[in-house]
């Protein structure tokens, strides 16, 4: 078994266009959620989101690239560029042949689908651009990362709705741990803030019209966001031998399936994933200082998640901190676990725990230390990141300070 460390991190999300600005925003408890600027927003009943404002694709990519890169692929490539640059790795020879990419996304090229359905159904056009299929496919981002950085080993995309990124990073972790690959580029991306993407979510009646307030008694639903987080997972011995700066260690991962309901979460399923991840990490539950919650701000998730945490941790549940950064960046669906892993890294490396903003009133069913509204300085040795998807698919990662 190989130890696995993170040697690079990159992101673009509603809080910032890189890791440093995202950390700064999380420390300040900034809100990246605001009015949506998309086509036909007037026909939506939900008109807010964690949208990346002021984004200009032509500042980053040329005409030929834009013809091939959906917004979710663009976000992935920008995040990967930052992460791989930080790692200092260049992929040649045997390292290139054995290293790969595993990314999570739920909607893939949803903007491309939305735009082209408009063209053929609404505008009545009978012809679409020749690259629509390679632009919209869910594995487009992973493939473009592999091409851009010459990653020639195992590469694929994981789609498990809101747990996609955590499932992807769990695969990357286990592939490096078992020696299948010395380096895996991993994380996830989502760009679902288009008319069709939001209209579909509206139907479920679980979206908030004003704000995401996880764990607060006044919460009234989730808010969608967009963006990407990408990390370099590397064999510890490989990283040490080249003198790489290590951000933290990945020490455990577990998955579970509720096998119960297509949308309603299960306390038992969540608890089994959390307990399983700690067992995989061979860590006592008392070692955990911070949990980045799934914390969607829906009635169903937040109370189920808090009950699962209370079940697994017992009295220690009252000693640890648990916050939901979705209050700041929204729910990035298939990319959410990747951006939220940044909050875990910030807690371990910088000793700053990101807050749950928008918190107004305690809810007795969520009676944990949710780090309300203001970030907190704390010495955290072990951090967990929870993701619980529609379909009852759960994935929890454990990180440790290096």
């Amino acid at each position, binding site marked *: 078994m190989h130890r696995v460390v993170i040697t690079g991190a990159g992101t673009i999300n509603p809080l910032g266009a890189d890791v440093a600005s995202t950390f700064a925003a999380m420390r300040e408890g900034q809100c990246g959620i605001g009015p949506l600027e998309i086509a036909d927003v007037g026909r939506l009943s939900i008109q807010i989101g964690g949208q990346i404002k002021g984004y200009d694709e032509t500042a980053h990519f040329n005409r030929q690239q834009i013809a091939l890169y959906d917004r979710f692929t663009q976000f992935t490539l920008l995040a990967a560029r930052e992460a791989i640059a930080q790692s200092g790795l260049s992929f040649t020879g045997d390292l290139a042949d054995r290293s790969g990419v595993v990314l999570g996304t739920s909607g893939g090229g949803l903007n491309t689908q939305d735009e082209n359905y408009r063209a053929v159904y609404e505008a009545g056009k009978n012809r679409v651009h020749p690259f629509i299929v390679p632009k919209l496919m869910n594995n487009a981002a992973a493939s473009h990362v592999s091409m851009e950085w010459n990653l020639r080993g195992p590469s694929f995309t994981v789609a498990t709705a809101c747990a996609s990124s955590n499932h992807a990073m769990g695969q990357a972790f286990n592939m490096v741990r078992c020696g299948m690959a010395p380096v895996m580029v991993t994380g996830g991306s989502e760009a679902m803030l288009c008319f069709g993407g939001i209209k579909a979510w509206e*139907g*479920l009646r679980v979206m908030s019209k004003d704000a995401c307030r996880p764990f607060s008694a006044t*919460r*009234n*639903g989730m808010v969608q966001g967009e963006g990407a987080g990408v990390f370099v997972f590397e064999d510890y011995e490989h990283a040490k031998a080249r003198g790489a700066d290590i951000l933290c260690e990945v020490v455990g991962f577990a998955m579970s399936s509720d096998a119960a309901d297509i*949308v309603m979460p299960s306390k038992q399923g969540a608890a089994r994933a959390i307990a399983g991840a700690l067992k995989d990490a061979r860590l006592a539950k008392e070692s955990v200082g911070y949990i980045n919650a799934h914390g969607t701000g829906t*009635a169903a998730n937040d109370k189920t998640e808090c009950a699962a945490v209370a079940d697994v941790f017992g009295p220690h549940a009252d000693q640890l901190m648990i916050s939901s950064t979705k209050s700041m960046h929204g729910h990035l669906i298939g990319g959410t676990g990747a951006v939220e892993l940044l909050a875990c890294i910030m807690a371990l490396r910088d000793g700053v725990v990101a807050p749950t903003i928008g918190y107004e009133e305690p809810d007795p069913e969520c009676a944990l230390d949710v780090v309300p509204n203001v970030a907190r300085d704390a010495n955290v040795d072990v951090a967990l990141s929870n993701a619980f998807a529609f379909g009852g698919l759960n994935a929890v990662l454990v990180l440790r300070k290096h």
Partner: protein
Amino acid sequence: MNIKEQVIAIIAEQAMLEPSDIKMENTLEDIGIDSLGLVESIFAIEEAFDIAVPFNANEPSASDFDISSVGAIVDAVTKLRAEQGK
């Protein structure tokens, strides 16, 4: 069909019961409609009556749309249709 009969037909279909089995005083819970079934019923009501029903599954009781019983839903639909000029 009048409003009452249409609402009962929608709820009966969701509950997989005969319309004659639905009583006005029944709660949705009585007839086995869960939160997903409720969201689907509201969608069917909006489509059938061409109205917009204000309803957030996170705070069902905070809505003006009273779902405490089948009869309450019939009254709420009647009121919404009048308000929305249908």
